[in-house]
């Protein structure tokens, strides 16, 4: 990796509300709502956008090359456009790609659009179709997996693990209840831990229905500009410091029982090392994590923050991941609340940027947010990790 050609700032964010069904909008109309909100947030017109980058999954809505149709709402008419997808990570990949396109010096302002309208397809059927048709498709159960739960339980025992996972889920729901755009806002209370453990239907092993992410409709737009343009156009641009993408080959390993290093851990180590951040838990002020289920979310805190042993469970048990905790996790409510898949990973970066700006509204955390982390998850255990900063000049900062 070389030196960044030029800095890139996030100058606009637009989101639709997220819901299980948007009967009143077709796909281009839903995209248009997010685009209009993004442009309004940036205070610019479509004429100032040089390039658009688009992403969602074709087989979820069964539309081939959907950007062709979505041009009716995306504003891409007459403009440059690219379309990049990487499964669940799509939205985060779009953020990385937009950063690259602006940093290249070729485009000054790039608009990224992530969306999904899962109501219009069969999501679990679509995800099952990602598996190899000869070897694994008859085993795949969409995104439903009990392995994260059994892994945590093996290590820390059933009672502590199940309580921590339900604690995680309720914390996420409490955050979601502060976010008017969130899809599922259930009003769960911490005194429901045991009753939910007993009553929520089991999907696979110890993965219960309440643990699992939503299936949502919605779109997210982010607008990126070169340092010069960002300073001219925005009062409070949020700067992209660095990002990393780490993929891994198909997760089913028939050759042995050795558990490979997670891509989350690999990505975090590489990213923090090259940016001189020895202790991410101390450095970051907020973390928006792509948490497809409460079990995965709980397990991955340790991977992303490079923690050891039961440090992640302690963070959960001590309330350190709540809105007013040491490192607020998913103030937006995260993916268990809202999951329009092609937009989901972009939402992580968008919500992290809103926290840096102080513009998250009801779910704004109270302390000053200078450094934010956002993650994407997709494919066969793939990771995208993005670092956002309030101020430029991080090269000079002593990260202690």
């Amino acid at each position, binding site marked *: *990796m*070389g*030196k*960044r*050609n030029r800095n890139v700032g996030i100058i606009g964010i637009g989101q639709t509300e997220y819901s299980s069904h948007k009967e009143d909008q077709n796909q281009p109309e839903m995209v248009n709502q997010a685009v209009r909100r993004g442009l309004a947030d940036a205070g610019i017109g479509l004429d100032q956008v040089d*390039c658009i980058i688009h*992403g969602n*999954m*074709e*087989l*979820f809505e*069964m*539309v*081939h*090359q959907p*950007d*062709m*149709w979505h*041009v*009716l709402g995306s504003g*891409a008419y*007459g*403009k*440059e*456009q*690219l*379309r*990049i*997808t*990487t*499964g669940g990570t799509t939205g985060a990949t779009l953020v*990385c*790609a937009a950063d*690259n*396109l*602006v*940093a*290249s*010096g*070729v485009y000054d302002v790039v608009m990224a659009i992530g969306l999904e309208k899962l109501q219009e397809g069969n999501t679990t059927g*679509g*995800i099952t*179709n*990602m598996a*190899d*048709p000869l070897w694994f498709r008859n085993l795949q159960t969409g995104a439903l997996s009990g392995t994260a739960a059994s892994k945590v339980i093996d290590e820390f025992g059933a009672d502590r693990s199940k309580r921590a996972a339900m604690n995680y889920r309720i914390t996420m729901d409490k955050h979601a209840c502060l976010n008017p755009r969130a899809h599922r806002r259930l009003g769960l209370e911490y005194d429901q831990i045991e009753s939910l453990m007993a009553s929520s239907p089991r999907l696979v092993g110890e993965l219960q229905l309440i643990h699992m992410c939503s299936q949502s409709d919605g779109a997210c737009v982010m607008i990126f500009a070169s340092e010069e343009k960002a300073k001219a156009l925005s009062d409070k641009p949020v700067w992209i410091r660095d*990002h*990393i*993408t*780490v*993929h*891994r*080959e*198909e997760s089913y390993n028939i050759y042995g029982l050795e558990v490979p290093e997670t*891509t989350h851990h*690999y990505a975090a180590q590489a990213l923090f090392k090259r940016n001189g951040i020895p202790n991410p838990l101390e450095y970051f002020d907020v973390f928006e994590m792509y948490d497809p289920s409460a079990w995965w979310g709980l397990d991955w805190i340790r991977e992303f923050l490079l923690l050891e042993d039961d440090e992640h469970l302690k963070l959960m048990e001590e309330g350190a991941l709540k809105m007013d905790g040491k490192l607020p996790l998913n103030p937006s409510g995260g993916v268990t609340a809202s999951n329009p898949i092609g937009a989901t990973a972009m939402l992580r970066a968008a919500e992290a940027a809103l926290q840096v700006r102080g513009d998250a509204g009801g779910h704004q955390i109270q302390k000053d947010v200078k450094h934010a982390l956002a993650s994407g998850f*997709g*494919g*066969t255990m*793939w990771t995208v990790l993005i670092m956002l900063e309030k101020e430029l000049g991080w090269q000079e900062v002593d990260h202690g």
Partner: protein
Amino acid sequence: MKRVAICAVAQHRCETDIWYKRFQGMLLDILEDIQLQTGFDFNEETGVHNIVTVSDDVFDARTISDNGITDVVGAHYRGEEKMAQEGLNALVYAAASILSGHDDVVYVTGHCKESQSESRNVCTNLAYDPFYGRPMGLDYLNVAALQARAYVEKSGLTPRQMAEVVVRARRWGVRNPYANATGQVEEGEVMASPLVCDPLRKLHIYPVSDGAAGFLLASEERAREFTDDPVWITGFGTCMDSYFLGDRDLTGNFALKKAAHRAYKRAGIEDPKQSVDLVELTDCYAYQQPLWLEGLGLCADGEGPAFMDAAGPARYNVNLSGGMLTGNPLMIGGLYRAAEAVLQLKGEAGEHQADHVKTAVVQSSTGGAGQFHTVLVLEA
């Protein structure tokens, strides 16, 4: 813009049905070919950290079509981003990634097996909205036929001229070891081939093909580590037209003209007629060759047929690969076009090598009747 190097290209021979090899095997052949040419690896410090792939969920009938190829493109514990659009855009994006400073060497690879679906028209029918276009049966073939009819009306393109495009394509395709439909055909055969979708006849339409291709791109600073004679990406541009056919001027080249203008401007080309030595364009259907040549600014609007008669394609070395008409799959046709242009600029095109090629223009389109266009400028 600063230039970016293409250090090596690899093409899988296109066939109508590569039933004996899965796309993973085809991609592995491509990767090994490029590694043999350049010696590049995936070393954590100095190797490739990011791979840009091209494939399509609908053509592969797999959600996240890139998830089955991680190992054979070298992305195990590395980055991989899928261009879910026509393949030429992967070169645009990979070049921008290198210019950004985030990457200095990027491997680009793509695959498409049109043989896997019962009909590629079933795939492209899904590109039409579920309310109006799809139930009417629109797909890229019959929409192209509407464009062909409009272009015939506008330009006076004759059946004989359309046939000549195919005859010339086959004449060159015979010499290209990567082409699919290589048999020579006569004008009369083309004009008498079965009418598929009026006015398009069977031989006017690119044959169903399977294929895969790969590229190694590097920054100017690192290019010489991998090759002695890099070819340079000096400009690119893209453009989107509107969606509903009634909202578009099907023969006006709105998107191609803008894409070409952007590419020429970035490459510092003021007059393409003077600067361009070679053109590789995505002629899925015979009438598109003169139409796209108009859009690229090599002849005036509506003058494509006269330009053909005046040996314009010979003068500008148009599609010496044989082009799409000798068989490359949709989605990665642009990668084959670019690979051919790179070989020509390196002087490695073998039996179909042109003389004195310094500047090449590569064009691809996607969407019905060229809704979206990409133009790349390559220089020796």
